[in-house]
């Protein structure tokens, strides 16, 4: 399953997934490109990934989530390439019988992807110049 995509993420595709009759909760996280990084205005982010490992890691995260919570449907898409301000960069959707599992699993998945998936972003301004200092989230340095 390719979780990375160069095409726009269609939230409707996730919403079109049939809900399992056992499920009573559907939770989604939609990550959108902000208009500023560290208070500096930007026009877009360029996402770069080490594709094979990112795909593998996301699949492992889903497997782990399914062992920890009762999930019947998981949908993940992450953009690579240029993504303009306001566009969806990542979408995590989960369906579960109960809301607690759905919320916790969704939170786990986005946190795990942001922490471990080999994906990097570079910010560009309206003049297509790189916005310095925005390509590393400093709080993730360890």
């Amino acid at each position, binding site marked *: 399953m390719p979780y990375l995509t160069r095409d726009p993420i269609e939230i409707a595709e996730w919403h079109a997934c049939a809900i399992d009759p056992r499920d009573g909760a559907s939770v989604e996280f939609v*990550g959108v490109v902000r208009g500023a990084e560290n208070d500096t205005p930007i026009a877009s982010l360029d*996402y*770069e*990934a*080490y594709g*094979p*490992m*990112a795909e*593998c*890691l996301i699949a492992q995260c889903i497997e782990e989530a399914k062992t920890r919570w009762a999930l019947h449907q998981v949908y993940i898409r*992450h953009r690579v390439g240029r993504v303009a301000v306001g566009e969806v*960069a*990542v979408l995590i959707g989960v369906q579960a019988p109960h809301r607690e599992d759905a919320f916790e699993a969704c939170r786990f998945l*986005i946190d795990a*992807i*942001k*922490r*471990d*998936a*080999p*994906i*990097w*972003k*570079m910010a560009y301004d309206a003049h297509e110049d790189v916005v310095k200092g925005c*390509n*590393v*989230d400093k709080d*993730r*340095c*360890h």
Partner: protein
Amino acid sequence: MGVARTATGITVNVLLFAQLRDGFGGDQLVASLPSGATGAELLVWLSQRNPKLTGLLEVSRLAVNCEYVPLEHVLQDADEVVVIPPVSGG
């Protein structure tokens, strides 16, 4: 990549991404290391090639065969090692 193996050493292919690729000016390097070399020794080798990147290398992680490995992981001849600077997906 054209580097001859020796009886006392290993050769690993290093893949570089993001700021590390930009810093080294390429997305691949071939490292010749002593047999039994660890991930930490590879980072030292990289740091010696470009001391300006030492700080970034110190906060980078290593992966072999698409799995993160600890710095004490012993590298094998012909391994493909990915050096992963702090990620920023999402």
